[in-house]
Each structure stands twice: as C-alpha cells, then as structure tokens.
C-alpha cells in the first residue's frame, strides 16, 4: 500500500476515534493516577499530598473487608460457573433432541442487565428466605451466595456457548483414535478433550475472573452492601468512597488505582498460566 497517499487521509481515519479515546480514556486515566496522590473535591482544587491516600486505603477496614469478600466471591464464582458451563456444553454437544432450544434458553439471562438481574433475584431469594424468617440483608453470607447464584444464572449460558464452539472444533478423529486405543470415557475427557479445550478454558476463566472482580451493578441492586457494608465488593466500595464520603475523593482514587493494578495483574497472571497449558494444533 502506498503509505504516502494514505497519510494524507489520516485525519479522516484516525482523528475521530483518537479524539474520543483521548477524552474517554487517556486523559481520565492519567489524571486518575495523578489525583490518587492529591487531596481534592472537584479536580480543580487538587493539592499533592504524596502517599497519604494510599496509607488511608489500607487503614480503611471496609476496603480490606471488600477485598477479601471480592476475592472469595471471584474464586467461588469462577469455579462454579466454569464447571457447570463445561458440563452443560459437554452434554449439549451429544446427539439429543432439542439441543438448540436448550442453548437458546441457557444463554438468555446473559442479555439482561445487572440492575434488572439484581432486582429479579432479590425478589426470589427474599421470597425463599421468607419461609425461614430471614432476608437477604440478614447477613453477608446470604448476600454472598445470592450473588453466586445470580452470576451463575447470568454467565453459565455465555461460557457454555464458548465451550460448545471449542468442543465442536476438536477433530473427531482424535476422539475416535483414543477410543480405538481403548481409552475410557474419563481418560478421553482428561487426556484429549480438556487439553484440546485449553483455549476456551483460558478465555472463559479470564472472562469470569475479571467479571467477578469488577462486579458492580448486581452487587448494588441485590444488597447494596447490606448489612452495614458487609456484602460490599471492591467496585461498590470505591464508588461509595467517591460519592458517599466527602473529603475522601483522593482515597477513592487511590483505591481505584489499586483496583486497576489488581485487575491487570490477575488478568495477566491468569492468561500466562493457562496459555502455557494450551497445545499447538
């Protein structure tokens, strides 16, 4: 391609996205890092205060609690969602009447937004707990398992679709060959199917991991942190620090930076770890 004649057109091709990207990402990101070292209420009155915001973050018991609560939730939801989605995908790729209809049904909840999902499950879980004279906000444990159920309902279908696509890509000869060699069903699963599915497993665990860690809407709609912030996850904790406590904006921004570093680190470590197990075809 003639680069010179292309370059004349760069304003048309590059500028709109670049300008919006600058407003929507680059400036807020850089300002965000800068402001995490400042005390401020409205951005324009920012004063540098060094690391004091970061010190306050770790002295804030709600943040530390939210961190552990989020970590635990993420582990539980990644495991449950992937195990269920994988099992359903395995069963639905077998010859069976109605598989297409079942896939359609399982995927459906994924399209419903977090806020709506939260209120749907609030009604149902409160209804069930009502028989035992409890509500979702009685203890953080109920909120925890409520969120796990909600996220399973929402995400199993999505992950199932990715696993199904992966399973359908496994060459049939591989399984046939293993069968002829006398491998049991369990051996085929362990030594053929799962290694061949590593790319799907990588992406599904990546998506569930980051979705779990960044969860906000569902958390806010289902319990909004009740009782007394005990069921609050990190994203909601950051939001509350910004908009619920005056004078804490700097601390909120510092929390956001820590949150970003955590999400990025987890994402990179996870991708490295599962990518290394992928087999070359």
């Amino acid at each position, binding site marked *: 391609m003639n680069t010179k004649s292309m370059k004349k057109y760069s304003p048309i091709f590059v500028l*709109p*996205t670049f300008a919006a990207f600058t407003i929507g990402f680059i400036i807020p990101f850089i300002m965000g890092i800068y*402001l995490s070292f400042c005390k401020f209420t409205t951005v324009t009155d920012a004063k540098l205060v060094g690391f004091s915001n970061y010190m306050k973050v770790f002295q804030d018991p709600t943040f530390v609690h939210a961190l552990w609560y989020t970590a635990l939730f993420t582990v539980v939801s990644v495991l449950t969602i992937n195990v269920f989605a994988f099992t359903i995908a395995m069963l639905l790729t077998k010859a069976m009447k109605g598989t297409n209809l079942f896939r359609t049904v399982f995927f459906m909840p994924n399209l419903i937004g977090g806020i*709506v999902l939260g209120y749907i499950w609030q009604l149902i879980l409160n*209804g069930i707990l009502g028989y035992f004279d409890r509500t979702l906000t009685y203890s953080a444990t109920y909120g925890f398992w409520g969120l796990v159920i909600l996220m399973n309902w929402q995400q199993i279908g999505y992950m199932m679709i990715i696993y199904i696509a992966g399973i359908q890509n496994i060459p049939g000869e591989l399984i046939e060959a293993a069968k002829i060699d006398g491998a049991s069903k369990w051996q085929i699963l362990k030594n053929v199917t799962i290694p061949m599915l590593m790319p799907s497993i990588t992406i599904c665990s990546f*998506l569930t991991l980051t979705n779990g860690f960044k969860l906000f809407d569902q958390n806010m709609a289902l319990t909004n942190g009740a009782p007394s912030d005990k069921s609050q996850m990190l994203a909601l904790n950051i939001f509350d620090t910004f908009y619920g406590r005056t004078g804490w904006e700097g601390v909120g921004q510092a929390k956001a930076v820590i*949150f970003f570093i955590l999400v990025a680190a987890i994402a990179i470590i996870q991708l490295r770890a599962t990518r290394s197990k992928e087999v070359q075809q």
Partner: protein
Amino acid sequence: MEKKNKVTFGTIFFSILSIIWLTPIFIVLMNSFKRKAYISRRPFSFPTGKAFVGLQNYVNGMKKIGFFQSFGYSLWITVASVFVIILCTSMFAWYITRVKTKTTTALYYLCAFSMIVPFQMVMFTLSKLADMLHLGNPLGIVIVYLGFGAGLAVFMFCGFVKSIPLEIEEAAMIDGCNPLEIFFQVVLPVLKPTCISTAILQTMWIWNDYLLPYLVLDITKFKTIPIAIQYLKGGYGSVDMGAMMAMLVLAIIPIVVFYMFCQKYIIEGVVAGAVKG
C-alpha cells in the same frame, strides 16, 4: 436400543432444567400483575382473586419513571453509539494496521491496554471531564462511549484486517481509488461479519450499562432504563414493588425480542469476541 433411551433421558432432563432456568422470569411476570402488598409477602403465589390488579402496576410504573422516555433515551444512545463505534473504529483499525509507524503501533497497544482497565479507575475523572466538555446529554455520551469502548472494537477489527490479503486493496489503488473509496467499497464489505459481531457485543454492553450513563448524563433530565429502575428503588422511600415488577418485565421484553431476531448473530458474536479476546 440403549443409546435411544439415553437420548430421551437427556431431553427430559434438559427440558426440566430449561423450565427451572426460566422460572425467575416467570415469577417476575406473575408478580407484575399482583397487588403491591402481596408481592413481598407471597412472591410465589399466583395472581388470583384479590391479589390480581390487571395492568395497574404497569400504568403506575410507567407514570413514575416516564418509561417511554427512558426507553427512547436507551434506544437512541445504544443505536447511535454502536453505529459511531463501528464506523469510526473500523476506519481507525484499518489505518493503523495498514500504515505501520511507531505512532500507529503505540496506538494499537494503547487500545489493547485500555481493555483491562476497569471503569472505576477512570470513572471520577471521566465524569468530571465530560461535565466540563458539556457531554452530559444523549448526544455527547456517544463520544464518551466511542472513547471508552474503542479498545475492544479496535482490537477486534485489527485482528480481522490483518487476515485480509493486501492484493485486493492494491488492485483497487491501481484502478485509481483513493483510500476512502478503498475502505468503503473494498474493505468494509469484507469486514461485515466482524462489524456485526462487534456491534452485538457493544449493544449488549451499552444497553445494559448503568454506571457510565449515571455518572456522565444529567440524570435529572435523561434517564436510561437501568437508571430509571434503580431510581424507582432509591427515590421513593418504601419501594413500590408492583411498579418495580412491571418495569422489570418491560425492561426484559425488548431484550427478548432482540434475542429472538438476532440469535444467530449474537451467538456468533460471542464466539468471535472470545476468539479475538
């Protein structure tokens, strides 16, 4: 013989599971026809006798949150943003893939990087900046969505552009086409499947997004559907559960309709997004 039995068992098992899977939606639908007082107390009973109120909850709810307005804002913001994102980022992605300089390489990595940055990292500064630039209206938010949503879209388009053979574009260039003509007449038609996949992923995100519009828009004037539903919960002391249930149903209906018509593309989009990601 044994195989046949198994298949039937599987179908029965999944039929039951599918019904259980959809139960939450039916329960909400059922409660949307019940009198307020009966909803929290007995969410699993049928709307019969005294409990049945017909469409009253729907009328109340629509009045309280201005449903049609919210629906209009949600629809406009989603359609406009997705259209602008697809158009601008596909052009951007094509350019930075074809013209290899240090700047374009840096831009590519910057876009990829932006995908792992959680919204909380930029939410405060972004909302202040949008406020300063007067982007807090249904038109301005399109620019914000283009900016914040560019990462994933550029990444997906770049992945696909790399696989298009250069020869077609070179042939068009020899025929005297300028880069704009090449893009719209040659490249864009080839990019169509990726456009659809990207559009689906962006639609699912923007339609359901709560926090970004909540922080960026002037929400005294412009409420999208998720904002309106959250407002129903927060703005009225004791929650009107009847109106809430009715509005949840109305929020789900457009999604189900969209799903029925675009199911094939949605599932392809999810798979394509996963492969590229």
